[in-house]
């Protein structure tokens, strides 16, 4: 056994980056859980229901569970790798150490775009929610949602600018409230407490699989939205007190929470809302849990789920700003992007330039593109990232077998999770192709162009050996 041990208190895998001021190590497992679940829980409050529109309610349930398998594989693989790569940037830093710089550059961009688009989708939903609340409280004219969208993004960016502990403690509180709101709605409407309002059999009658089995495949596209972002827990690696323990614990607890929340959400919404309405997230149900509460007849539930939806969108946008800025910062620090972005705020110890830079990017998409397109852009970037993960873990185990680096967590049944993940990614690519093939090709075309730009231009500014910051032995085969 080597002496390279991330579980050590004195040698936790952090490598020198040459910066005088580092990020602050203040987070615990609960913050990691809050970061992961906080980003994703909004997926139960909005967006997942597009999968109902793609193939019907049963198709959405099948997609929910297959996407659950995909993300369980992601969480297991990620937990093992990140428990040894305790550095900001998450999968970007993993790719840099395991596959190579160009892969890392691409993975860094996947992360930034997946999270920035998700942040934009959250802001759109928050704007919608304010307009609904305005009409419920007597405002008659159409409310202009744009000021609220701008306010949400800039307020959360300011919070992120000021410090990570306050940011993620805020997330912990509002995520817990949003999760409790889902449980309360379930208990109140399913018949567990008092009379139930579920009518699954009557609502599904004649519409079991409206598109047949191809609809089930198509539903996989938005099935990812139930869980998209859980992999963001790794972004906190450089700011947790005990990465080897906190990151696997927070990530795996997070995916378990989400599997429960996703199934409950499907059960409640599909048992109350007709599938055509539920499945249309633009003209029909933008916020399905909120709509379910509206049909429950309880004013208290309407307000609870209204706040739950708002808190979920804020928590998600907050976590997205945190994660996207860490990935952008990490790339700047390595000179994959201009080094100016690699600065840490001297007082707040946050990657403040990256946080500020990404604000207008998020605003462009929140104010300029429809919700389903923004979600699709986010999902596509996430999907490309998930396709990288099986390659990453296979190469990680090959280059550093289990007896060469002590892991904080070793995922079981390798390589079955890797191949399962790869197979479900393939199915999801096909699902995206069925509805959004042009975006898929356009986005991959973009990644090919920026890859050539990086390899032939940008990489000249990168210090070769200094990129490898982990205290690991030389990889096998090199």
């Amino acid at each position, binding site marked *: 056994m080597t002496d390279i041990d991330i579980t050590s208190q004195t040698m936790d895998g952090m490598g020198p980056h040459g910066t005088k001021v580092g990020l602050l190590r203040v987070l615990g497992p609960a913050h990691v859980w809050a970061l992961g679940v906080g980003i994703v829980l909004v997926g139960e409050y909005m967006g997942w229901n597009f999968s109902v529109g793609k193939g019907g309610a049963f198709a959405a349930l099948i997609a929910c569970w297959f996407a659950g398998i995909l993300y369980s594989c992601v969480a297991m693989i990620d937990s093992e790798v990140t428990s040894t790569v305790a550095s900001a940037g998450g999968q970007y830093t993993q790719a840099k150490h395991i596959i190579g*710089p160009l892969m890392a550059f691409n993975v860094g961009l996947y992360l930034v775009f997946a999270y920035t688009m998700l942040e934009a989708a959250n802001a759109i939903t928050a704007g919608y929610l304010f307009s609904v609340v305005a009409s419920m409280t007597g405002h008659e004219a159409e409310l202009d949602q744009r000021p609220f969208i701008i306010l949400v993004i800039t307020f959360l960016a300011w919070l992120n600018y000021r410090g990570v502990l306050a940011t993620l403690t805020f997330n912990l509180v509002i995520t817990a409230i949003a999760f409790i709101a889902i449980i309360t709605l379930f208990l109140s409407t399913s018949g567990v407490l008092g009379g139930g309002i579920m009518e699954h059999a009557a*609502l599904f009658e004649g519409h079991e699989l409206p598109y047949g089995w191809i609809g089930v495949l198509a539903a996989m596209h938005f099935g990812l939205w139930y869980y998209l972002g859980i992999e963001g827990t790794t972004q906190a690696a450089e700011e947790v007190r005990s990465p080897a323990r906190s990151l696997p614990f927070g990530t795996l607890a997070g995916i378990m929470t989400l599997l429960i929340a996703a199934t409950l959400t499907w059960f409640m919404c599909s048992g109350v809302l007709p599938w055509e309405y539920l499945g*249309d997230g633009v003209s029909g149900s933008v916020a399905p849990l909120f709509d379910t509460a509206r*049909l429950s007849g309880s004013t208290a539930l309407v307000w609870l789920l209204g706040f739950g939806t708002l808190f979920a969108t804020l928590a998600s946008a907050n976590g997205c700003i945190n994660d996207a800025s860490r990935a952008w910062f990490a790339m700047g620090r390595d000179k994959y992007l201009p080094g100016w972005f690699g600065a840490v705020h001297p007082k707040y110890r946050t990657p403040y330039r990256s946080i500020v830079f990404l604000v207008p990017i998020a605003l462009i998409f929140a104010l300029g593109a429809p919700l389903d397109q923004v979600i699709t852009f986010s999902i596509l970037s996430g999907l490309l990232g998930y396709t990288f993960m099986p390659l990453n873990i296979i190469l990680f185990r090959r280059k550093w077998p289990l007896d060469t680096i002590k892991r904080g967590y070793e995922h079981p049944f390798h390589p079955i999770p890797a191949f399962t993940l790869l197979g479900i990614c393939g199915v999801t*690519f096909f699902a995206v192709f069925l509805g959004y093939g042009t975006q898929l*090709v356009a986005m991959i075309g973009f990644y090919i162009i920026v890859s050539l730009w990086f390899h032939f231009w940008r990489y000249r500014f990168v210090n070769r050996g200094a990129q490898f910051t982990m205290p690991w032995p030389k990889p096998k085969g090199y």
Partner: protein
Amino acid sequence: MAHYIPPKQGKASQLFDVVVLVVLTVGSLFVPLWLNLAGAAKTVASPVENPTWEALGQNAAQAAKYEALGFTPETAHDLILARFDYSFSVGALLVMILVIVLYYFLILRFSESEYREVISEKFGK
């Protein structure tokens, strides 16, 4: 391996790199929208004149939910009848597969050559 010393990048060059990335990003995401190639639009293949809940294929429970949500058969017509078209050509599917495989092949190939350089400088031959 000799230690590689990267050139120092000037401020204007850094700014130019950021602008290039932003333009490419916004372009790749918005051009399909501007060209109306975003897809995923639903259409009503067979509209129903003077729609009723029965004509729209809704049973009593389904109709009651729509009414509770504030819909009438007329206002719910497009929402209920619009469908996606999942037909596709095998050629288009093959092009997509080819593009994805080419992309991963490209980045894995270039990454490997860059990675060998990193390992060589970090650990020596």
